[in-house]
Structure formats: structure tokens, C-alpha cells
């Protein structure tokens, strides 16, 4: 009897589980590998909700196209548009499916799904389950996967660390090597396709809002094996997080919305109890700098100001930890409990301090990696995707696919709120039929029947790396301290505000850290549940991605989405004279067009094994469906620029001129 083909899915978050479940339905045998029991994946942390057009918004004028438009606009047009369009059109059926799977979405009195508005859109598109939507969605998929596991279709390998893809002589992926985190056994897993669904890489920044498994190591190992990486420099930072010694925990922005005031003591690191600091010694920097908006400045401005007050101006409230005060103590307790009860409880639980009495300490935190493994797609004539096409979600390594947060495809330069859960489930469901079809007529036979030598040598390579680390003498570098230093550098230079001199310096420092990480010595040299060696390996594999982020950021001389370089900002209009103002607007638009000509491109990083560094190139973006337009929110003179922009658009004889690009990846 011929061996049946298998698909290996690495990562058990929303994307991995969705793919596993869909493949199982298509009668494909699936192996599902994860660092943790899949039910504990990072997707559980998503609080907000999941977007889709729905019957109610439709009647208010909403449609899939608008959801698509909001997503590419929010992403500053850096995404290829066909996959985003496909996702927007899939959103309503995705939510229907999750509803059928028993997700405990909030309900209207009549029993329909309740919806709310989320940032970046005018419509109530977001379905939600309390404040734990990600958890509820993940559990629904986890349950279905468990059902298939009982049926024998899916095998789970939990507490396994993905070490490397296995490539045959033609460079096609034929499986992967992985290590059992308990027994430390290293094993080869033949697989006809490997699907990476391993999420973001927040731990490169030391502490972030991400979970401890989000080291990006699996992605880095594929990157080092030759997979291309896209848009690495685009990292979303959430403006308000609770800084903890171990991680940064999300604090909803509604605290600012309900009247919270942001301030720091004028005296750096004033050690007095904040309640004892008199008004005149407090620096309400948002209110002073933006008298019109005050504390309600847009999210990205709030992020940058809080960041620069602490990092550039050294006014952090703590000497050893960056933070500003978010003060709610002037608001009556009853009102706080009514409006912000749940959020304040989270703060109280993890900080042990009641924010109704004492100002909260908050700081921006790395939250989401827009960048990720470069993946392909096949475009239809009308700008959607060809279903079940082998190219959909395929990385540049044949046979290796990437879905979810670890691909670069859906969020461009910045991610729209409540779109991440959608992109994960969508890409997981969407990749499956293409794989199932290809398994029907595999060229070159089933992976498990290939000569054992291929798998054995791949395994041996990883054994050697492992054994070499364990056999080192003591006295070397401490991986935990190196990780802290890497995180400090990355957070300081490559998050909210980026400066070329700082980035260049950071690259040098990171290269030095990389070399030091090569000399790590382990405090545990045993071969049973050795978390020390596992961490050290993942630390070493953080450097290729860290360099991708830094070099990408250094080279991209513009502002786009989450990538902000003050030197290259297009300033607002300064003149009050109408004619001069008009001239400035013309100039602004010229600069905008030029900026897009130069920079509306995906950053593509490739690993250069000889230099142990990265090479960067650029690819055009398919913006054929919605022409890029300026984002003018909050900019001085926005109306005039808008006017000029509109006139030029009308003047253009052919509506799809230079902006249209070819589909990527050919």
C-alpha cells in the first residue's frame, strides 16, 4: 500500500488551526506542530474583535469593497491588493463559519451577532465575544481540530520546536526537523507540504505585548534556509501598554477616550508619590503640544509623543523603566467603574495598584509584525485570487507555505484594528484547497517514501548544532542578558520613531551582539527539558530578523504607516496666504507622488549566508484596484491638499496609469 501524503503545519494559532481543520475536511492527513499546547497559542490574547461587512452595515452603504478600501488605506497602500480584496470578500462567510462553530459572540436582543465600531472605519463591522474574541475564536478552532484528532485525521506534536525545513536537491521543501522540548529528541518529519503559521516576532524587541513563544525563530530558520522576507521594518506599536518586568500588557485606548490625562513630572524621575506632585510641576505634554486635541490626539501621534518624551527627552517617570502617567484619578470612582471597570481591573490585577487612586503608568509597546515571510498569490482578471491555486500563500521555497501573522501579505504598512484575526483565519482556510489539490498528483513521490538520507542528514545537522551548544565550556555569554540588550536596542531605535544615525548604530551593535550570541554558554547542559538551550537557539535566530527590521528601516527614507522617520515627513502647509498655500499644496502633492514612485514597494530581504547578513531589494506593489491616495488625517492644510489631489486625479486621462503594477512574484 502506498504511503499517504501528509501536510505539516507548524504553529497552532488561528491560522494553523484553520488550515489544519480545513485540510482534514478535505481528507488530507495533517501533522500539527506547536511549541505549546495549541490552545495556549498567542491568538488567545486578541481582545477586540473581527471585522466583516454585515447585513446591518450593508444597508448603511457599506460593502466588501469599502472594507477592502479601509484595509489598504490603513496599510498605506503597501499591500498587494488582490489578496486583501479576497480577504474582505471572504470576511462575512468566515464570521458565519465561526458563528456555526459555536463562538460565543455577543448577541443582539433578537439573537443576531452584535457588532461594534473599531478604529479606522465608519461602520459597525466588528463582531466580538466579550473582551476575549481571540480566545473564543481560537477555542472554536481548537475544538474542531480536537474532533479531527479523535477521528485520526490530525496528529498533534505539542511541545515541539521547529528547527529547520528539509530541502531536497531541487530546493523543494520535503518536511522539517524538529525537537521535542521534553525529551530533547531531534527528529525529521517528512511532509509533502510544510505550512508555517508561527505568528509574530515581538520577542526580538525584548518585551512586547506578544507571548513568550513569539520569538520568530521558526520564520528565521526558514529565512536562513532561503525564504524571502517581506516588509520586515513594519512593526505596529500600540500606544498604551502596561509596562511590566516580564512583558507589556495591552491597555485599551478607551482610558484616554474617557478623559484620562497623560503627564510626566517636569523634574526627570521625580521620586515623589505622583499624587503629591503639584499641578505646576506636572508636564501635560499632549495638552500643551496639541491644544486642540489634547489627550485625544490620534493614536500614532500619541505613541510618538509618549515615546519621545521618555526616550529623547528623558522624562520617564521611572529611572529604569520607560513610562508616563495616564491619570484617571480626577474622575469620580463610580463613573470609572461604570465606563472602564474591566480595563481597570486588568491594571489592578497585574500592577497591584488601583488606578482609581493612583495614576497608571503606561508606555507604547510592540504589538504586531506586519512584515513576514514573502508569499505569492495568483490573481484573477477582476483582481481577486484564483481559489485553490498552488501559488496562494506559497513562500519562495517550493513546498513551503506561510499563513497568518508570519506572512507579510495583508496589512501593508499598518494593520487595521480587528483585521488580524480575520487575516489569520482567512489565510488558513484559503491555503488548504490548493494544497489538497496538489497532493492528488504529487511529482516525485510522497515525502515519506523518499530516500532516508535526505531526512537523516538534515536531522544530523541539527543534532550537531545542539550537541555543540551543550558541549561548550562555561564562562561564555549569558543568553538571557544578551536578549535584554537586543531588546533594548531594538525598542530604542526601531519602534516608534526612527532616525538613520540611530539605526546605523543599532546595526553595528546588533552585529556585535550576534557575534557574542555565538559564544553563549549554557548553564544547563543536560538533555531533558532543557529550556536554556532552546532559548539560546531561538535567541541566535532572532538576529537575522532583527537585521531585516533594522536594515529595512534604515533604507526606507520616508514615512509610511507604522514606519516613521521625522526627517522624511511631508510637513503640513505653513502659509496663511491662499495663493502661497495653494502652491505649497501643489508641492506637497508632487512630493507625495514622488515618494510613492520611489517607495511604494515591498521591501524584500534575503539571507546572505556567506556574510551572515541580509540583502535587500524592492518589488512593485499591485495597486491596480484602488489607486494610492494621501492620508491627511490631522495634517495642517489637509483641505487644500485634498483639493489639489482631486483635481489632479480628474485631470488624469487614463484612470489606471502608472500606479498599476503587475502581480507580484513572477
Amino acid at each position, binding site marked *: 500500500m502506498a504511503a499517504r501524503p501528509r501536510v505539516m503545519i507548524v504553529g497552532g494559532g488561528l491560522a494553523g488551526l484553520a488550515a489544519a481543520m480545513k485540510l482534514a475536511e478535505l481528507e488530507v492527513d495533517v501533522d500539527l506542530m506547536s511549541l505549546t499546547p495549541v490552545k495556549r497559542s498567542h491568538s488567545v490574547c486578541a481582545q477586540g474583535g473581527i471585522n466583516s461587512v454585515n447585513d446591518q452595515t450593508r444597508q448603511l452603504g457599506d460593502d466588501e469593497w469599502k472594507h477592502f478600501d479601509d484595509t489598504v488605506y490603513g496599510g498605506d497602500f503597501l499591500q498587494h491588493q488582490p489578496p486583501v480584496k479576497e480577504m474582505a470578500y471572504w470576511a462575512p462567510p468566515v464570521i458565519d463559519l465561526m458563528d*456555526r462553530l459555536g463562538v460565543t459572540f455577543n448577541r443582539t436582543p433578537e439573537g443576531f451577532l452584535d457588532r461594534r465600531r473599531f478604529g479606522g472605519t465608519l461602520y459597525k463591522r466588528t463582531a466580538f465575544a466579550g473582551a476575549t474574541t481571540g480566545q473564543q475564536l481560537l477555542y472554536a478552532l481548537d475544538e474542531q481540530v480536537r474532533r479531527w484528532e479523535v477521528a485520526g485525521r490530525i496528529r498533534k506534536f505539542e511541545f515541539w520546536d521547529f528547527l529547520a525545513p528539509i530541502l531536497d536537491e531541487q530546493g523543494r521543501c520535503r518536511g522539517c526537523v524538529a525537537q521535542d522540548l521534553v525529551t530533547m529528541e531531534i527528529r525529521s518529519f517528512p511532509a509533502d507540504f510544510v505550512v508555517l503559521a508561527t505568528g509574530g516576532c515581538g520577542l526580538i524587541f525584548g518585551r512586547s505585548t506578544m507571548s513568550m513563544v513569539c520569538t520568530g525563530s521558526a520564520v528565521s530558520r526558514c529565512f536562513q534556509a532561503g525564504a524571502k522576507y517581506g516588509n520586515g521594518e513594519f512593526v505596529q506599536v500600540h500606544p498604551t501598554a502596561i509596562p511590566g518586568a516580564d512583558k507589556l500588557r495591552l491597555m485599551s485606548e478607551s482610558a484616554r477616550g474617557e478623559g484620562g490625562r497623560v503627564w510626566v513630572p517636569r523634574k526627570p524621575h521625580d521620586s515623589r508619590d505622583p499624587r503629591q506632585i503639584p499641578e505646576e510641576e506636572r508636564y501635560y505634554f499632549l495638552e500643551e503640544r496639541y491644544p486642540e486635541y489634547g489627550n485625544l490626539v490620534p493614536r500614532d501621534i500619541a505613541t510618538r509623543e509618549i515615546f519621545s518624551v521618555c526616550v529623547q527627552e528623558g522624562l520617564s517617570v521611572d529611572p529604569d523603566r520607560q513610562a508616563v502617567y495616564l491619570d484617571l484619578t480626577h474622575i469620580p470612582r463610580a463613573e470609572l467603574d461604570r465606563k472602564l471597570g474591566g480595563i481597570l481591573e486588568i491594571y489592578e490585577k497585574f500592577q497591584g495598584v488601583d488606578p482609581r487612586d493612583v495614576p497608571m503608568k503606561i508606555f507604547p509597546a510592540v504589538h504586531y509584525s506586519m512584515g513576514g515571510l514573502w508569499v505569492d498569490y495568483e490573481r484573477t482578471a477582476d483582481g481577486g485570487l484564483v481559489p485553490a491555486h498552488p501559488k496562494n500563500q506559497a513562500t519562495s521555497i517550493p513546498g513551503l507555505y506561510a499563513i497568518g501573522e508570519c506572512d507579510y501579505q495583508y496589512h501593508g504598512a499598518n494593520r487595521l484594528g480587528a483585521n488580524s484575526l480575520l487575516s489569520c483565519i482567512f489565510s488558513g482556510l484559503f491555503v488548504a484547497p490548493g494544497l489538497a489539490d496538489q497532493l492528488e498528483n504529487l511529482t516525485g513521490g510522497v515525502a515519506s517514501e523518499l530516500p532516508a538520507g535526505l531526512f537523516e542528514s538534515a536531522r544530523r545537522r541539527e543534532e550537531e548544532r545542539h550537541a555543540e551548544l551543550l558541549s561548550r565550556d562555561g564562562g561564555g555569554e549569558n543568553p538571557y542578558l544578551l536578549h535584554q540588550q537586543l531588546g533594548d536596542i531594538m525598542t530604542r531605535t526601531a519602534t516608534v520613531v526612527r532616525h538613520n544615525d540611530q539605526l546605523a548604530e543599532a546595526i553595528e551593535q546588533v552585529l556585535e551582539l550576534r557575534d557574542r550570541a555565538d559564544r553563549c554558554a549554557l548553564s*544547563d547542559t543536560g538533555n531533558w*527539558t532543557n529550556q536554556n538551550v532552546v532559548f539560546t537557539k531561538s535567541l541566535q535566530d532572532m538576529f537575522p530578523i532583527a537585521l531585516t527590521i533594522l536594515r529595512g528601516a534604515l533604507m526606507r527614507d520616508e514615512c509610511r504607516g507604522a514606519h516613521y522617520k521625522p526627517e522624511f515627513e511631508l510637513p503640513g502647509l505653513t502659509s496663511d496666504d491662499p495663493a502661497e498655500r495653494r502652491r505649497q499644496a501643489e508641492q506637497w502633492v508632487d512630493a507625495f507622488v514622488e515618494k510613492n514612485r520611489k517607495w511604494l514597494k515591498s521591501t524584500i530581504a534575503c539571507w546572505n549566508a556567506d556574510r551572515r547578513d541580509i540583502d535587500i531589494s524592492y518589488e512593485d506593489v499591485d495597486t491596480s484596484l484602488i489607486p494610492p491616495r494621501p492620508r491627511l488625517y490631522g495634517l495642517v492644510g489637509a483641505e487644500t491638499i485634498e483639493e489639489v489631489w482631486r483635481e489632479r486625479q480628474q485631470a488624469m486621462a487614463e484612470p489606471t496609469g502608472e500606479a498599476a503594477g503587475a502581480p507580484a512574484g513572477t
Partner: protein
Amino acid sequence: MAEPQSKPASIDSFEVRILRQEAPGRASYWERHRVDYEPQMNVISVLQKIAAKATTIDGRSVTPVAWDCNCLEEICGACTMVINGRVRQACSALVDNLLQQEDPNEIRLEPMSKFPVVRDLMVDRSRLFRALEKARAWVPVDGYYELGPGPRVSPEVQEQAYPLSKCMSCGCCLEACPQYTKVELTRLSGETDEEFQQRKRATYDQSFIGAHAISQIMLFNMHPTGKHEAAARLDQLTAPGGIQICGNAQNCVAVCPKEIPLTTSIARAGRATTAHVIKKWFDR
């Protein structure tokens, strides 16, 4: 709860005592560490410091303590351990509270006692997930093609279901349950991996299913589609290891970090199984 954020003024470091065990079947032993005090630490950051330092209170170099964690937001369920004798999540156990309210001298960390120790504070909770298989804790949908929206659900039912659906399989309810006892098997010589796994599953299935799984059964029996398999789930609740083992100590609900009304689920399950068994008796 207007707790001041003060720390015990005199403290600049504190002691942590950890019950360690190198591997299954090995003897466990206590190890003492001294950790520098910082404001607003939790037990995870204590363990991180201990891992980075890897030196005991008397200056001996030791291997870093192994423990399990992931989200650090008390929503993934990974970092459950016994802290000062009581089971809870390490991420939401704050050092200030432990020192001020429980024991000013030291913090005691032990692995959960109801699951086999893998190493140090890491335990093997596969029995817990096996219980979810046994409970058939899923909605038996036809498939994942586009088949329109799910059944309508009233807000009342949603409000009843939502708290139950927050169960993160952390195992606190099982650790604190006096009726849930440890099952630890060792592989026999000559037994293949597959055979060992099968024996484990069979043994787990005969042992108490636990509060979390009973609650999941009530959750899925409440769902309009999940209901279709209600009888099969209730059969599991009356099978060996079923709800009958519950002794109503109600520790489960007291220690649940997600405040899931586990005892309500258990009582409802009691009612449902009563009706189910009588119905089966008279209907067959």
C-alpha cells in the same frame, strides 16, 4: 480596594524556595534562591531573574529552573503552579501581595501535585486535554463550507455560555479538587510509544474527568447545534470517571482564575444526568 502601592520599606531582596525535580521518577528537593526586590514584580519575572542568574542562595551554580508560561496575561493557562501552597497562575501572582498578605519571609513555588512532573515546575497536563476529547467538547458542524450563519442565540443563553467558554484549561480546578488524584504512568519495557499512549488514554478515561470538562459538556449541551450530541456527552458523564466522583468540596470554583461558575455547571450536570439516566432506563 484602595491598596496603597507601598512595598515593605525594609525589603531589598527576598527568598524564593522552589521544589525542583530533574525528571520524572527522580526525587524532588527544595532549592533556595535570593532575588532582588523590584516594585510590581510577578512570579514570572522572579523566575526569569532566577533563570538568568542560575545561582542559589549559597552561591552554588545550578541549572535554570524549568517552568511553563506563554501569554503572561492570564489567558493562555500555561503558567499554573502551586504558590505558597495554593494553585494559581504565576503571571498574575504579584510579589508585593505574596510578601505582604501571605508570607513576608519567602515565596514557595511547587509544581502542581495532580499531574506528573516533567521537570521542576513543568507538569504533563495531557490528561486534562484528553478529558476534552472524552467530553466531545466541540460543535458537530457538517463542515467548513459556506452554509450560512449559525443558529440564533438569545443574549440570555450567550451570557450563560460566555463565562464557560473562557475556560483556558489551566488545571487550577483539578489541582485544588480533593477528588482529583494524580495518575502517573511509566512506560513499560518493550512498550511502543503508540501502545504507551493508548494505555495512558485508557487510564485517564477511567479517572475523574474533572470540573473543567464537566463545565465544557454543559457549555456544548447548551449550544443549539452542540445539543445534537448531548446524550453522548451525558453518557460520558455517567461513565467511569464521570460526574459521580465529584464530592462537592467546591474548591474548583474558589480557585478558578477565570471565575467560571463551575459548581453551577456541576449541579446542572447532576440534574441533566439524573434525567438522562432515568430517561434511558424507561425508554430503552
